[in-house]
């Protein structure tokens, strides 16, 4: 009874805090505190494996070192290439598949389920089994390609030219269904009367696509690409299992390099600076992107 009374006496604001309090606490403990700690570490020469060695303040040295290191820019370039091609392919193929599945035909639901399957798998598992598919001696990939045109034996993972494409192909195979699903949701939200009115105005199918379908689905597509962009910027597990960042450093994405610097070389201060730079980059791009997306939505 007394408890009931006590709760009865709580203001709306207090109840609101009661509900969001645990989330705020977790957010502060798991996200904000580590972020602040990482920023602090980025100004030191801290090595997490050197027990008993006190970190010393080194100012902006780590940031200067990261930004002046040629290898870092190579990794950023590899990451940018990976993101550009995966996002482009996933946008085009995802939209195409969504348009296809938006039509009513026999087996539509079964096909949708089959297409969505890769997305349900663990990235690490996908990485491992694609290494077998890419095997130049027994892998299915070579066999399928050579079925259409005889290229002979080629090594997708071992060749510096093909390896970047090997990770693009796997990521596209795995995540295009995600783009497709979001585009499909967009397509299904377009009211039919718009197409009916367009037909009355004698608009061609192409004009209907350009003036009705595309503008309606574009915010959805952009949202899907935002999610995929953020995910691919920090892509790690699938690529590590597939190529280990090799051959050499041909597929060593920024996130893989960061892990190696932080948890294999144990350069905690330096890698914290690198992590902060990556965070600012993705945060900046994300903000600009959201603003552009909102403008498109407003139109």
């Amino acid at each position, binding site marked *: 009874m007394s408890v009931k009374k006590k709760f009865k006496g709580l203001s709306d604001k207090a109840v609101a805090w009661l509900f969001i309090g645990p989330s705020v606490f977790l957010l502060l403990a798991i996200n904000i505190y580590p972020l602040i700690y990482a920023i602090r570490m980025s100004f030191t*020469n801290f*090595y*997490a*494996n*050197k*027990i008993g060695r006190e970190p010393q303040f080194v100012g902006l040295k780590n940031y200067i070192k990261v930004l002046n290191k040629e290898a870092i820019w190579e990794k950023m370039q590899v990451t940018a290439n990976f993101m550009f091609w995966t996002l482009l392919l996933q946008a085009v193929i995802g939209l195409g598949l969504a348009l296809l599945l938006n039509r009513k035909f026999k087996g539509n639901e079964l096909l949708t389920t089959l297409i969505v399957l890769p997305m349900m798998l663990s990235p690490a598992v996908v990485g491992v089994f694609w290494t077998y598919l*890419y*095997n*130049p*001696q027994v*892998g299915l990939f070579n066999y399928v390609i050579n079925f259409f045109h005889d290229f002979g*034996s080629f*090594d997708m*993972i*071992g*060749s*510096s030219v093909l390896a970047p494409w090997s990770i693009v192909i796997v990521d596209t195979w795995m995540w295009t269904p995600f783009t497709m699903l979001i585009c499909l949701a967009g397509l299904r939200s377009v009211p039919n009367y718009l197409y009916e009115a367009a037909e009355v105005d004698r608009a061609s199918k192409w004009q209907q696509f350009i003036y009705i379908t595309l503008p309606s689905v574009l915010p959805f597509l952009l949202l899907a690409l935002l999610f995929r962009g953020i995910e691919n910027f920090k892509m790690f597990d699938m690529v*590590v299992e597939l*190529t*280990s*960042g*090799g*051959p*050499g*450093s*041909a597929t*060593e994405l920024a996130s893989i390099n960061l892990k*190696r610097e932080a*948890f*294999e*070389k*144990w*350069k905690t201060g330096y890698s914290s600076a690198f992590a902060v730079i990556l965070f600012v980059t993705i945060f900046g791009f994300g903000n600009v992107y959201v603003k552009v997306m909102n403008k498109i939505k407003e139109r």
Partner: protein
Amino acid sequence: MILLFVSLFSFSANSNAKSITLGWAAWDPANALQELTKEFTAETGIEVNFEFVPWPNFADRMLNELNNKGKTFDLLIGDSQWIGAGAVYGHYVKLNDFFDKEGISMSDFSPATVYAYSTWPKGSPNYYALPAMGDALAWAYRKDWFDRPELKSEFKKKHGYDLGVPANWNQLHDMCSFFQGREIDGQKRYGAAINTERGSEGITMGVTAAMYAWGMEYENPNKPYDMEGYFNSPQAVEAVEFYRKLYEDCAPPGHSDAYMVANLDAYKSGQVAFQMNWYAFWPGVSKEDSDGRVSGFFANPKQNVAAATLGGQGISVVKYSDKQDLALEYIKWFARPDVQQKWWDLGGYSCHNDVLNSPSFPTSTVYAQGFLDSMGIVKDFWQEPTFVELMLPMQEAIHDYVVNGKGTAKGALDKIIEEWVEVFEADGKL
């Protein structure tokens, strides 16, 4: 009911008090050790739990555990390169007093293994491990193919000498390329499965087998950490170029990220005439010879000098363990000559002189003589506390040159030195 509870409680308390955990890599010798340890448990009543970690995660798992002062392991069979970190960062118990008290003498063990697996600073009488598993990088080959008269005569006609155990790396290349793409028994075969792995230590262990044979030194013997002109000497450059040639001319397709297991698979599936691998695997390879496959084994071929890449491990007591006394009891038992003999008999590579110097040892297995030869010529990667930081740039630069075909061998070695200087500077060594 109360009695049952009390007896259960006392059993659990007792079993906790009399059990230890040993960590090692998940591979054939670990199974042999598990078998051997049953005798220790029978003798002492101390249960030994094992945690075997697959090789690709072995270093990460164990070093994280040590850095976090974890109590999971009481005993650790750690890689030879970890000894520096184990000693300097205080992860391993110093064993000198214990050895003195128990009459365990390091002179009873092969000097190369004591130097490599037990001492820090290197060569000093400060022991942090007991040599547990001797190992070196070596080669296995398809003796049954080599014995075929038609292949022998064709090879001799082409190269002017007999097809057999290669006397040097040039001959190794001749032989590997002889088998590359050749059809034998209706199947396409390839030359050699060599180390090309990028993620942990694979390609470094492979390329150094060539570099040591060409006479590479890591540093100026009179000026520690002075690497210029030593690690990137013309001989070292030539060796790295040769390793790339071996990869390009002789590796099976898709062998671009391969280490122990991938080399074994390529060999066992009949793809290749040669495989580069650790002695630890030879008992298994030899035992599994079937369908006409007969394996021969030989130590790393010489080029300018006789040398081999060191593998193997010592067994250490973890400083953070609450059961150091039980762990030390295990080491005391393991150091016994009779136990060491059984260790060898079960497939482990003992480092004890009583075993190695026994007259019957060289003929005890087909690879025993090779093992003896190799252990006399082994060289190891840096054993510095920063060895992981030193390993990673080498992995990247060598893989970039050998597999990726990027840049030059000299450029790769220069880049490695540049990174190593940075590591040594950060560590206060330069």
